């Protein structure tokens, strides 16, 4: 029994240690955004020799939204001679094909690809799209995204830097005011992009390519093996694969694009569980490879490791809560006696619990959206919700590794209310 109690106590200390590390990380990011020098992105560069671009838009049953993104992309200010748009109709059973063919008839640079055999899912669709693409740079959007006129240029311009392998723009929910869930997701996005990603860019750590509103070098990614169709988080995997091979991933805070956030809790639950499963799968594959990477600095490796573990932390916390309950009922909650324990717990409560909230609040402040800061306490509920579903995703990934089963891609449901349009 003593050994069990010792293990339980050790685990609790480990949990607190992890939380302290992540809290410090959040605080550094927040303070960096508020008070320290900001690195500028490349959006001010005007260059008439930007690389050719292929936009890939994986679509599975997207008749509700396909026309919206295509309408916006044909208005893009990118040189038409250097632009190609490939919407990838991936096994759709609705009217997506008709919508895409309608646009192809009007615009020669829109070249739809209809997939009805082979592997399904986003990574497989992107691989097929890259085979067909002619652009030097691939820019990816999900079908529900609404790119502004200048976005392609803002993304493509960073590839004038010879060290940049991928770039990530900022995602902004367009249906923020729909309900409490969308409002909370908007807060998460604000903290995640405006503070977290930008701070990592400022500090020359490892910003993350997010799989949409971003781009990468086609030839180089294909030479590295394209996307692994067994991994659900193909974006995270690409971030680590490029970084390990000496490429930098940049974050472009000004390359903003609207998305549609999930409006129902069950849809959000599936989405975040899928993210967790994919991200943790990448964690299992890249943890040691990251530590051994030749081209990364110590700080990049350290932050890259923390980023890699970010979907493990909720699992650690969940187990920590269970652990603390067990210790409580065993009457063994007192780990350290005396003054140091009080200081330790006090510091943790002061900084640890509030760190992510400061990050979100700071993001809102920087965006000038100050009233939504009032919603911060409600993130408590999101925290428990995320913890549960991320933990489920972690165990999915663990099972994937143990059983070598293949994960099946699940599309996030769309909520936009509109009739399908053919573009003709």
């Amino acid at each position, binding site marked *: 029994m003593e050994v069990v109690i010792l293990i339980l106590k050790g685990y609790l200390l480990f949990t607190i240690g992890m939380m302290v590390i992540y809290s410090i990380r959040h605080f550094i990011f927040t303070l960096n955004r508020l008070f320290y020098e900001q690195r500028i992105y490349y959006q001010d560069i005007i260059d008439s020799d930007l690389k050719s671009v292929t936009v890939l838009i994986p679509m599975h049953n997207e008749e509700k939204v396909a026309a919206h993104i295509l309408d*916006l992309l044909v208005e893009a200010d990118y040189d038409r001679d250097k632009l190609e748009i490939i919407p990838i109709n991936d096994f759709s059973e609705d009217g997506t094909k008709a919508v895409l063919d309608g646009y192809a008839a009007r615009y020669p640079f829109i070249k739809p690809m209809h997939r009805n055999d082979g592997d399904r899912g986003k990574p497989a669709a992107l691989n097929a799209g890259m085979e067909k693409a002619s652009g030097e740079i691939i820019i990816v959007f999900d079908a529900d995204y609404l790119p*502004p006129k200048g976005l392609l240029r803002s993304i493509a311009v960073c590839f004038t830097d010879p060290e940049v392998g991928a770039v990530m723009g900022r995602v902004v929910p367009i249906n923020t005011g729909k309900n409490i869930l969308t409002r909370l997701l908007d807060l998460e996005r*604000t903290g995640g992009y405006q503070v977290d990603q930008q701070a990592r860019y400022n500090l020359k750590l490892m910003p993350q390519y997010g799989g949409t509103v971003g781009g990468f070098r086609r030839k180089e990614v294909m030479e590295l093996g394209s996307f692994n169709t067994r991994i659900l988080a193909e974006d995270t995997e690409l971030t680590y694969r490029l970084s390990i091979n000496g490429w930098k991933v940049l974050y472009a805070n000004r390359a903003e694009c609207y998305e549609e956030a999930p409006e129902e809790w069950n849809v959000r639950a599936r989405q975040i569980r899928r993210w967790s499963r994919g991200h943790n799968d990448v964690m299992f594959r890249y943890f040691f490879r990251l530590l051994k990477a030749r081209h990364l600095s110590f700080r990049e490796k350290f932050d890259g490791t923390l980023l890699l573990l970010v979907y493990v932390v909720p699992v650690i916390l969940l187990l920590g809560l269970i652990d603390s309950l067990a210790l409580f009922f065993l009457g063994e909650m007192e780990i350290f006696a005396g003054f140091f324990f009080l200081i330790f717990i006090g510091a943790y409560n002061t900084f640890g619990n509030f760190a992510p909230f400061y990050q979100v609040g700071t993001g809102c402040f920087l965006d000038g959206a100050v009233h939504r800061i009032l919603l911060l306490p409600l993130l408590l509920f999101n925290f428990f919700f995320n913890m549960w579903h991320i933990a489920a995703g972690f165990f999915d990934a663990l099972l994937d590794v143990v059983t070598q089963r293949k994960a099946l891609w699940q599309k996030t449901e769309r909520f936009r209310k509109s009739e399908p349009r053919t573009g003709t």
Partner: protein
Amino acid sequence: MLLFLCTIIFVGMFLLPFTPAVREVIKKEDAAPLFINMGYSKDPRYFAVSFRKLMLKAVGDAPEGVHEITLSKPERIRIAGQAEVSADSAIDTVFYVKKSLKSGNNATLRKEVYSRGDVHLGEENMIKALACDGKVTIGKGASFMRWLDAEGDVTISEDCHLGISATCDGVLSVAPGCRFMRLYGAPVIIAQSKITPAAGGKPVEFEPIANGAPTERGISSLPAHNVKNCNLIAEGSLSVGEHAVIHGHVKSHGKIVLGASAVVIGNLFAEKDIEIGPGSRVYGSVFSQGSIKLQRGVTVGSVGRIKSVIGKKGVTLEHGVTVYGYVATEGKGLVV
């Protein structure tokens, strides 16, 4: 009763932090999505282009004289044919000139000016903003509060403050002592009073740097007269000797110092300062998170191509510098 009271107090205290959130959920004061300008397109002449559109729409066929118009807000506007602003005088209204505009020394134009013909400003003028459809010449010590733009060439004399941006569709010639934040011209040239830089000429052709070009890492110096046919990535600072030629892009995580008469057929990126030696030639863009100094006779870009020189903390341009395109800084822009 006590238990009930305690329960009420507990529930109240528990819910208290959530009350502002509940209020915001109900009132939806900040529920709109964050604003993204869906029509935004990077244009160095953005201010002038949008101002011209506003002005032409507001002025219409209005005759000469003083009128009330609405730009971004209601304004008084003076419309003139040929205009001459005498020395030491001031104009307090928006000024629309149908032909050409000339001002004497120490004139003040407190509002925006739009001239459809050429503009000649005397010394020590103070102007809020100027859009011109012709050529512009500006006397010594003029000061722009916001911006200046012309469809034709712009010639700027010594010691002028060029506001947020000075742009044109022709040659933008800037004399020593001027301060700027953004310059755009085809090209931008830095001229001393008796020097005419070699602007213009035939387009220079060269092979673009292909995707997948070989990359050499870990380099810290390139000796004089050496030639490299690859991209260079330096983990620290990089020093390039005189007359060295790099057919590739260059990235440094420290400083870049290019010796005299070096040639880079590609872009230059540095996390710290960039200093380009006299007579050097960079065919691509130059970008620094620190400062950039282009010494005398440096040329960036080539005819028919638009390139940029972006230095976050500052850009210093010496005489004889030519930049085909755009120069910008968040810090101090100085011509010496």
